[in-house]
């Protein structure tokens, strides 16, 4: 679990508990109980768990209180607070569908084999207006076989992520893989959320055959890398996969060239460059990759100036466009972008983290050997994708001096990569 954003609000545990215990109509304008409930995820103590349970027990239905209750249930789930199961069980009967969703999710996180609780979760499958996908996830995760036939009814649900969860749950509960190709097919759905969520289902079902398709799925590489890494971890630990079988797909995703993706959108005619630059700000990365591909094919000469201009204007503070600008400078092999890429390589603000690995790949594309010592400093970070991209970049620049350090890295994928490179070198 990536916890970069957990400690976002810099509250102390005492401050957060005091805020959470303040009745919502007495809270000062300068404070937020919602933030307090979010913050306590950093405090796995009895005191915090008790405070979160007290917050769930405050049932005033006004919006300001309702959102605090939901967030408290979510935090209790993250803290795996077994003692909260009875009250979370009660929340499954709530009128608020999002509270029910969070309660079902929290039960899955905490983990229980209590048949009464799991049957209450299963009965929600017959209740309309619920987030059935999350309910199905919890039942599958808990291996609750009495719900199997009820889950099976959702395998043809018109809501694709719900159908995907149901197919996956049937696969997990019975070992039937026959329908999993439908879930793989969703990796190419025009709806970005269907694409992203099907990756989660492929992880949950340990469907290793999907790794090449995940590598081509036009979503942010964060989702692809998470999927491939989790599947690799599971498959290698059981001897089903080897690092060598995963490596090309992992590296294809880290390299992240738009030509290696199966794009799901298309333009009738190539748009103008300003329109394409604006597409880099889209939240659906599938559209951003199409814009990148089109820029490379039609506007390679004019693009650098436009990229510098949009960087100065907005992209330097927009973590999505920032990422694509870095990648494009690399694919364009635009040497004047060197300083900008070095700055991105060392940018420690967490929302720009994926731009660091992007900058490493782009610097290798520039072929400027001045980047080698800059890149090597990244091997000392704790960010695995940055370290891996750095090893790929150093390899491209012809430098192998980082391998000895990397074979002892804390991250198993970095060790595997370094060992693979050393094996080739010898």
């Amino acid at each position: 679990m990536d916890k970069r954003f957990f400690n976002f609000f810099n509250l102390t545990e005492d401050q957060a508990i005091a805020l959470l215990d303040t009745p919502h109509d007495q809270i000062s304008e300068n404070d937020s109980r919602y933030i307090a409930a979010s913050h306590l995820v950093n405090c796995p103590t009895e005191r915090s768990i008790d405070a979160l349970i007290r917050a769930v027990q405050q049932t005033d239905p006004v919006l300001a209180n309702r959102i605090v209750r939901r967030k408290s249930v979510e935090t209790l789930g993250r803290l795996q607070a077994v003692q909260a199961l009875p009250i979370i069980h009660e929340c499954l009967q709530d009128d608020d569908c999002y509270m029910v969703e969070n309660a079902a999710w929290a039960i899955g996180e905490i983990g229980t084999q209590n048949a009464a609780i799991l049957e209450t979760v299963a009965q929600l499958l017959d209740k309309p207006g619920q987030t059935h996908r999350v309910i199905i996830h919890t039942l599958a995760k808990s291996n609750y076989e009495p719900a199997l036939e009820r889950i099976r009814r959702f395998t043809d649900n018109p809501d694709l992520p719900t159908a995907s969860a149901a197919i996956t749950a049937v696969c997990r509960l019975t070992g039937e893989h026959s329908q999993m190709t439908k879930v793989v097919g969703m990796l190419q759905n025009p709806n970005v959320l269907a694409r992203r969520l099907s990756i989660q289902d492929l992880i949950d079902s340990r469907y290793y055959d999907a790794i090449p398709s995940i590598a081509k799925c036009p979503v942010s590489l964060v989702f692809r890398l998470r999927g491939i890494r989790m599947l690799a971890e599971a498959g290698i630990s059981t001897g089903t996969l080897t690092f060598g079988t995963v490596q090309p797909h992992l590296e294809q995703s880290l390299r992240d060239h738009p030509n290696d993706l199966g794009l799901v959108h298309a333009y009738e005619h190539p748009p103008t460059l300003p329109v394409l630059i604006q597409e880099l700000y889209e939240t659906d990365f599938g559209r951003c990759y199409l814009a990148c591909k089109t820029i490379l094919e039609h506007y390679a000469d004019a693009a650098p100036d436009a990229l510098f201009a949009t960087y100065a204007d907005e992209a330097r503070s927009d973590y999505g466009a920032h990422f694509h600008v870095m990648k494009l400078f690399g694919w364009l092999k635009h040497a004047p972008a060197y300083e900008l890429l070095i700055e991105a390589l060392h940018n420690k603000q967490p929302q720009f983290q994926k731009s660091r690995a992007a900058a490493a790949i782009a610097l290798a594309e520039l072929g400027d050997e001045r980047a080698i010592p800059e890149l090597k400093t990244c091997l000392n970070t704790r960010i695995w994708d940055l370290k891996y991209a750095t090893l790929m970049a150093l390899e491209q620049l012809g430098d192998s001096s980082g391998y000895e350090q990397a074979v002892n890295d804390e991250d198993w994928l970095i060790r595997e990569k370094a060992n693979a490179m050393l094996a080739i070198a010898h």
Partner: protein
Amino acid sequence: MKSVVTTVIAAADAAGRFPSTSDLESVQGSIQRSAARLEAAEKLAANLDAVAKEAYDACIKKYPYLNNEGEANSNDTFKAKCQRDVKHYMRLLQYCLVVGGTGPLDEWGIAGQREVYRALGLPTAPYVEALSFARNRGCSPRDMSAQALTEYNALLDYAINSLS
């Protein structure tokens, strides 16, 4: 794209019937409110950048602990994250005003997005706080007519409720 009209027709078609009187009343209600919705949509579109910026600026001012130095707590972190996503939600909200239903928010901003936030450990609090500020900031007749503000605020409430 779901709207009141498409929902009514889809339900009638699925049952092989004509729209009922209550179906037609809900369509009529939606049409009657359309002028107010379009006024709100027009005002929001014209001021989107200012509205989003004001929301996150005010949020930082309101919660001084968001301002502290440090890699994961810095001012810029919050601002950049919030600015991009608040604008995204405001754009979806503007589509909802045009459509006359919550379809665009449901389909592109909420369904599954809650799961993504949970799976990646992303904070929802900044969006919720910034949208709550926008919710309390709107003023009639300064910003728009009372009816338009009602439509706008209802959708902000919807977004806050379903993201949190």
